[in-house]
């Protein structure tokens, strides 16, 4: 029973990191995807490089570099801040790509119709294109959210006491027990947490497929 309680102690942080970094990513992904789609070539290249670097370097490395590389006596990220901020940035990279796919699959005619009606760029983007793109990408976003839930465990490497860290720490402090047990418990918890999201996204996916839009 005790290992279960210990791992459960990490649950609030797991959820906190997942939710806050997802929110950060969802918001920061918007300027990034605008950068990816802009006609200004240098901005587009820079956005591309940023997105590719965020996605191409393992999270473990990003978190470590954020926590220690940015550290000066005047400005310092705590482990939790580094984890949330780091995963938020990485999510922005992934979500920007997902957004891009969604926007690209909105039929060209929708852009042209808003243009022909004289609906200004930002309004057309927010009210015409974005809602349609959102429907298209919502299953991918749900999948990403599940991935992020699991990847929040990487925060354990910079000492954030979420579930996997708790599992590790319990295993280390109790050398006589089977070291694998806390991990198995954590794994089960992740499934328990992700299955509802997966089910929800499957239903959403099917609903949107059929939707009389």
């Amino acid at each position, binding site marked *: 029973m005790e290992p279960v309680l210990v791992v459960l102690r990490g649950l609030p942080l797991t959820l906190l990191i997942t939710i806050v970094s997802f929110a950060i990513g969802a918001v920061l992904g918007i300027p990034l995807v605008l950068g990816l789609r802009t006609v200004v070539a240098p901005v587009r290249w820079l956005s591309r490089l940023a997105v590719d670097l965020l996605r191409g370097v393992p999270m473990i490395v990003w978190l470590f570099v954020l926590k220690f590389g940015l550290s000066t006596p005047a400005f310092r990220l705590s482990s939790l801040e580094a984890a949330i901020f780091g995963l938020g940035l990485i999510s922005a990279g992934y979500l920007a790509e997902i957004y891009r796919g969604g926007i690209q699959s909105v039929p060209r005619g929708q852009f042209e119709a808003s243009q022909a009606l004289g609906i200004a760029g930002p309004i057309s983007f927010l009210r015409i294109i974005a809602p349609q793109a959102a429907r298209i990408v919502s299953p991918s976003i749900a999948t990403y959210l599940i991935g992020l839930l699991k990847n929040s465990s990487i925060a354990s490497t910079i000492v954030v006491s979420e579930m996997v860290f708790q599992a590790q720490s319990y295993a280390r402090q109790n050398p006589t027990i089977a070291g694998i047990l806390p991990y198995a418990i954590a794994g089960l918890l992740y499934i328990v947490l*992700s299955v509802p999201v997966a089910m929800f996204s499957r239903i959403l996916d099917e609903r949107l497929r059929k939707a009389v839009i």
Partner: protein
Amino acid sequence: MQTPLLTSWGQYLPPLLSGLVQSVWLAVAAIVIGLPLAFLFCTMVMSKNRLIGALGLVIVEIGRGMPALVILYLVYYGLPRFGISLANVAAAIIALAWNYSCYCSEIIRAGIQSVPRGQLEAGDALGLDSRVTFLRVIVPQGLRSAIPGLLGQSILVFQDTSLAYTIAVPELMKQAYSLGGENYQYLRVFVLTGLVYAAVTLPATWITVWMERRLGKSY
């Protein structure tokens, strides 16, 4: 007093590169094993047989629902309790391949479902066997739209090889930790390690984007 950054990077690079070789080979093995598995799981999930469908769904959702690290631990440290003892490289490959194939199975399914219904009907109308229609008409088109997603997932499995360090596979991340433990310059080591990963993943991503664009054009 401190060694200049580039000098120390010069010293770290050889062990990191040997780790990179190991990482690449883990990823390649996971992909080679994982792709056929992905097809298998995908056909199971899409199967009309409810039992097989449910089984496929359970396999796929567990594979996607658990962190790769946890799968790795369960395969490597957990299976011996049931008398199955795997070498660390084998365990790493199996865990990564499972995780990879579950994600790919969903990508392939989405690709197959994006093939217009008319293709299936045309196959029917021509009297093609439904298996022939599926394998030779639907799958090639579905795969084509799945290729960018599969490539993206392959880049991720390469990054996930870093988890194998926990079971003593001398891959890139493990070499980074060893170097750091030796000289306590973790930050420097990790920044260089990140660059080594990026040296593989960035070109791979660009190839993906290029393929996506090429595939976007008509046949």
